[in-house]
């Protein structure tokens, strides 16, 4: 057990060191959702009327609505950023160092996902603090209760990212992932508009959104942030947690680590 503890500590230590050394990564991760909050939502706030929907108990501004979605955006982009790092690691060979440890590989991969999730959580909380000072109504209790949810859901996104990194052989293919995975995952969710609005426009898109794990990640953050819970959402994200973890572990099984060189 002692070995596993030090191993986990080392992986988290390295991820935090990288985070501290790449300050531009921190600010760019923060600037993206803030631009959406300050500019995009300002433009749309008058165009989009929102009915009272759970977990909100009264009419809310559009800025308030999209905050949980923007937290999700931070987690999603940071997860994909970590996927990019994994591809570089694979190309540079440093990934091999991790995978040749005598410690259980799935444990090592989980630690890697958890370490990235810690970094994502720090960014997400910073964003919530900025949003609070911008005027979004948030409670300290809500933010504190959201931390474990952010951490947990971030692991799901990191696991998907890890799986993607196991499939991609070259860094050049990452642009395609942006277009075919990240953007559809973000836009086909309840991050920017409630699902009932999508249902009004297109039943097909609504069905797609209903299967998108990102929808449930955003909703679990939204509900917890406003001190509500929806048990069915938690069951669903737990299901996606198992699926994502299984995919990540399968992606890094021995025979798939190396391609013929």
């Amino acid at each position: 057990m002692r070995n596993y503890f030090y191993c986990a500590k080392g992986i988290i230590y390295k991820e935090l060191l990288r985070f501290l050394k790449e300050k531009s990564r921190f600010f760019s991760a923060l600037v993206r959702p803030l631009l959406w909050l300050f500019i995009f939502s300002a433009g749309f706030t008058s165009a989009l009327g929102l009915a009272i929907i759970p977990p909100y108990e009264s009419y809310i501004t559009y800025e308030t609505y999209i905050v949980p979605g923007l937290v999700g955006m931070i987690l999603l982009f940071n997860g994909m950023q970590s996927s990019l790092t994994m591809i570089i690691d694979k190309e540079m060979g440093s990934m091999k160092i991790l995978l040749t440890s005598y410690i259980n590989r799935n444990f090592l991969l989980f630690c890697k996902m958890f370490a990235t999730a810690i970094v994502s959580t720090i960014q997400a909380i910073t964003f919530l603090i900025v949003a609070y000072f911008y005027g979004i109504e948030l409670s300290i209790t809500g933010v504190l209760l959201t931390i474990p949810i952010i951490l947990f859901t971030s692991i799901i996104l990191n696991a998907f990212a890890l799986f993607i990194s196991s499939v991609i052989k070259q860094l050049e293919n990452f642009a395609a992932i942006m277009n075919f995975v990240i953007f559809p995952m973000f836009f086909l969710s309840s991050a920017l508009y409630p699902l009932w609005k999508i249902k009004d426009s297109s039943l097909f898109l609504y069905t797609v959104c209903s299967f998108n794990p990102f929808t449930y990640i955003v909703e679990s953050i939204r509900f917890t942030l406003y001190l509500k819970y929806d048990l069915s959402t938690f069951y669903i994200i737990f299901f996606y947690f198992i699926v994502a973890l299984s995919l990540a572990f399968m992606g890094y099984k021995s025979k798939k680590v190396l391609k013929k060189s």
Partner: protein
Amino acid sequence: MKITILELENVSHSYDKEMVLKKVSFSIEEASFFVLLGLNGAGKSTIFSLLTRLLNLQSGSIKINGYMIQNYSKALKDIGIVFQEPTLDLDLTVRQNLYYYGALKGLSFKETIASIKDELTNLDLDEKLDTKVQKLNGGHRRRVEIVRSLINKPKLLLLDEATVGLDLKSRFDILDYLRRKVQKGEISVLWITHLFDEVQESDSLAIIHKGEILATGTAESIIAEYKQADLTQTFRYVTRENPDA
């Protein structure tokens, strides 16, 4: 009687339908310097990947320190690894890189530095502990990787083309250092290379070509067996290939 530290028996491997290793067998005894010599594409790196569990064993058996490779938590516990490509994190310092690797070996930060204190001094790295890796030259980076592989005092050290890209002095400094450790009985080394000048006559040697082991023994005995003048000629004779081509 010496203990066998690594044993490969009838190991075969294929990528899709292409067979790259054909019933490879050899063994390494404790406190020996064993060279696996072959041209590019001979199958050396595939063997290395099988030994480090980056590839799954398809057929045959591999035993490290008495444990089957499938029992990796025990088999890989006492080995050190140096990869052909650089694997240090350039943005981190030497110390931070060592801490990270030590952690992957289940050691605390304090234990990590304590376990390689002598190695750091012997390889002139103790002054560079807080230097960023990207500021080190190629020779020093390789030395850091050697020291890193010695964390946890492994019984067997696996090195895949560890001197590629280094100047002559750096290459032989590293080789001499490891040979001294072997002579002291501290470690066994599997040195994988395509460079003939890195082999000494007293070294245990296996010549691999197109996935097959063609000769094993000490370098001296193999040269004598095929009645050739030197190792290069012996290699040419055994493989029917010109290594200089």
